[in-house]
């Protein structure tokens, strides 16, 4: 029996797990997929929003600003890439500038610090590639970028290092409340817990429904992206938003913490909660709009495109409430990534107010070794490590320069990578310009060796996604 079961291993569930792992509690995270951070947390803009977007007085606004202020320290502790690059909302006409003024005022009310309205010349000075038609901008120096999936992976890894458990391939399809205990089951497993946290993202209405709560509905809203080669990462240095219109926030252009350039997202409501396909219309819209905002974007340097699903709640605000020791953390659309550390604190408080004893654990370690620690070492330090363990001298991914040693570490470190995608999102092997063409055969072999299984059992992302299906007529070494 666990004190708390968290359903959903995204950045929200992950941050909550890490927060609860500070206390003398038994915590279990249940995740339907073969890895953590596969939902909205994997496919989003990775922006730490300053907090001028959300409507004054909402939970969203409050947790956004709080989360934004916490993010640097959280990322520092967890060794997650975080860059305080600042955000700009650019305007093209008087109407836009009025809107920008309104955002400025809203930001002040929400508690966003250092906001400034820039003139055309100030804007052009800090962003030379900005469209010549832009006439001014809202500048939020506290805006930042992070690696969203690394934040979730590191949060869950740190929670596990501090005692939390993770159950993958655990698709919750039944929740029973019997004798003050929740019985949570998948097709082939069951766990019991005194408290449940529903952080199931786009599926959180389904999970709430299993517990008898049908008070809200989640609509998936597609957001498509294109990611450009690292040679394009310098085209802008800030995150560039268009002034929001009736049609939404529009397409942003931003560097990523890895040095790529990200373009997106689109915004289209759909029905199918599993449909993360990109569309010709979506990709066309991105191509068209980014060129209106920023000049000199080499669209031919696309290395991949992808799509994320926002969990848009029916109430318009984050839905965080508790009933019978069952906490909903739902409708966590943007700025959910930013808010995640604040959401975690808030949820811990709610649990405490509902009789969960939060007793600090001695020996809680808030720190985790950075995921890319190897690349951060000096040459001397690297050579020392290679001498002790020669696999750090064997480069597997030529685009991102990832060594076999780092891949083995990802397979052995909480939360352990067990799939090709798992390795990719932890080490960046396969995330570069050749998109795994070169390294994936080696990654498959390393996984098989480490997991003591056949290469035929190695999958891209769990389930039936085996990379290889059979031996050739004369082949198959193992």
């Amino acid at each position, binding site marked *: 029996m666990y004190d708390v079961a968290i359903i959903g291993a995204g950045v929200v569930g992950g941050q909550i797990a890490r927060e609860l792992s500070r206390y003398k509690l038994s915590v279990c995270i249940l995740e339907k997929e073969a890895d953590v951070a596969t939902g909205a947390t994997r496919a989003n803009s990775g922006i730490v929003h300053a907090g001028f977007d959300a409507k004054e007085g909402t939970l969203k606004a409050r947790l956004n600003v709080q989360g934004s202020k916490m993010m640097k320290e959280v990322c520092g502790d967890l060794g997650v890439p975080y860059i305080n690059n600042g955000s700009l909302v650019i305007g093209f006409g008087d109407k836009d500038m009025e809107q920008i003024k309104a955002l400025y005022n809203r930001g002040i009310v929400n508690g966003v610090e250092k906001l400034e309205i820039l003139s055309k010349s100030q804007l052009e000075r800090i962003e030379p590639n900005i469209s010549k038609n832009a006439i001014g901008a809202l500048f939020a120096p506290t805006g930042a970028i992070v690696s969203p999936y690394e934040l979730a992976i590191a949060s869950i890894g740190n929670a596990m290092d501090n005692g939390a458990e993770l159950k993958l391939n655990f698709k919750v399809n039944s929740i029973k409340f019997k004798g003050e205990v929740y019985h949570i089951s998948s097709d082939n497993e069951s766990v019991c817990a005194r408290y449940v946290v529903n952080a199931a993202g786009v599926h959180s209405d389904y999970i709430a429904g299993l517990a008898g709560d049908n008070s809200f509905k989640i609509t998936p809203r597609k957001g498509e992206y294109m990611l450009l080669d690292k040679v394009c990462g310098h085209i802008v240095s800030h995150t560039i938003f268009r002034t929001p219109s009736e049609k939404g926030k529009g397409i942003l252009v931003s560097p990523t913490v890895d040095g790529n350039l990200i373009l997106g997202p689109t915004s289209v409501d759909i029905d199918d909660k599993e449909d993360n396909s990109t569309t010709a219309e979506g990709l066309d819209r991105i191509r068209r709009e980014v060129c209106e905002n920023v000049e000199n974007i080499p669209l031919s340097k696309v290395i991949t495109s992808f799509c994320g699903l926002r969990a848009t709640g029916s109430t318009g605000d984050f839905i965080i409430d508790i009933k019978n020791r069952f906490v909903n953390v739902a409708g966590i659309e943007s700025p959910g990534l930013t808010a995640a550390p604040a959401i975690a604190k808030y949820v811990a408080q709610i649990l405490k107010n509902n009789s969960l004893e939060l007793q600090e654990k001695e020996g809680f370690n808030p720190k985790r070794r950075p995921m890319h620690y190897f690349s951060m070492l000096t040459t001397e330090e690297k050579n020392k490590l290679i001498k002790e363990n020669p696999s750090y001298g064997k480069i597997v991914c030529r685009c991102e320069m990832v060594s076999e040693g780092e891949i083995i570490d990802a397979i052995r470190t909480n939360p352990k990578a067990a799939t090709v995608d798992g390795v990719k999102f932890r080490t960046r092997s396969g995330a570069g310009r050749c998109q795994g*063409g070169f390294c994936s*055969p080696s990654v498959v072999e390393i996984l098989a060796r480490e997991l003591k299984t056949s290469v035929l059992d190695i999958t891209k992302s769990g389930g039936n996604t085996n*990379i290889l299906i*059979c031996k050739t007529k004369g082949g198959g070494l193992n």
Partner: protein
Amino acid sequence: MKNVDLVIIGGGPAGMSAAISAFSSGVSDILILERGGELGGILGQCIHNGFGLHKFKEELTGPEYAWRYEEQIEMLKIPYMLNTMVTGITKDKKITAVNSAEGIFEIQTKAIILAMGCRERSKGALNIPGSRPVGVYSAGTVQKYVNLKGYLPGREVVILGSGDIGLIMARRMTLEGAKVRAVCEIMPYSSGLARNVQQCLNDFGIPLKLSHTVVEIHGKSRLTGVTIAKVDENLKPVMDTKEYIPCDTLLLSVGLIPENDLSKDIGIEFDSVTGGPVVDQNRQTTVSGIFACGNVLHVHDLVDYVSDEAEIAGRAAAGYINQKAGTAINIPIKTDGKIRYTVPQRFTECNKTVLYFRTAGVYNNAVVNVRDGDKIICSKKKRKLLPAEMETITLTEEMICSVNSGCLSVELEVAEND
């Protein structure tokens, strides 16, 4: 820091040939750095035949062709390091590399030959809409799985792009019992060699759908099929020609890109058409002492030409190290668009030179002219010119020496165009 006269980056056919040629031109302090576990480069996974027809008048497999050079490397005792990744080069020819045995180390060298080969254009670069299931691979990756590892990724195959690796893999997958449903090529002609279209597709009844492309990828976790469509003159898909083909594997053979990640920031001038460095008749780049040959310079269809080119680079690098410079001239070579590019792109010495070139389209009964100002100094008749097949024209020492206008241009005179 080690000191070596000549470092060759890449131990494929280009690197090996360059090493042997530099050695026989009098430089013995050579080091080949190869990231793979063996010499031979991509030839190791090219187990089909068709290599060496020009060089050895024999039809060899890739590994056999490579072995002819490996044997010589061993015999001449030319040093090489395997499993060694070069991570940086500087303009003053300092090389940083890493391997398990030595860790990260530096080498100062007098000359460098770039022979890193090329890589495949990836799925991402195509931006095909749809889902992201397992089952979409570049053809070379699957060639590695099948030929080197001995495993198949699927049984129902569609191939996008008619590059040579795609054509070869169509046959290979068929021989392994897979069903290749179609090869789609966006252009109205194949981008692979005619002999490969015949031997790998026609002989096995595999349809080649010219002017077709894949417009959507289907399947949530595993690939279930692709939608293909015909394209118009502007290469835009015509949506009412859409056709769904069920498959579990989509192979991409949509182009090769010279792999110049290492060399792009050292001040070398690049040719935007080839994607490789601009070189002179010695395959010397615009940074003196840095040479390039093989697929890192421009993508070849036949390895025999790679070996020829590497011999030139090896010989010239040896000359550079032994300070045997010729008369310095600078004659750039221009092309007219119908000729896509030439290699070399300029002359710095008056030597007899074979100019390699490719055309931009398919041309019948054309004449290739090399002009110096108004004067045609050399021409060659060609019955058929295909973009997939590299062509040559030879210029003599006198022709180059007597250039008056300061520049040469290579042009195509077309009688009939299709």
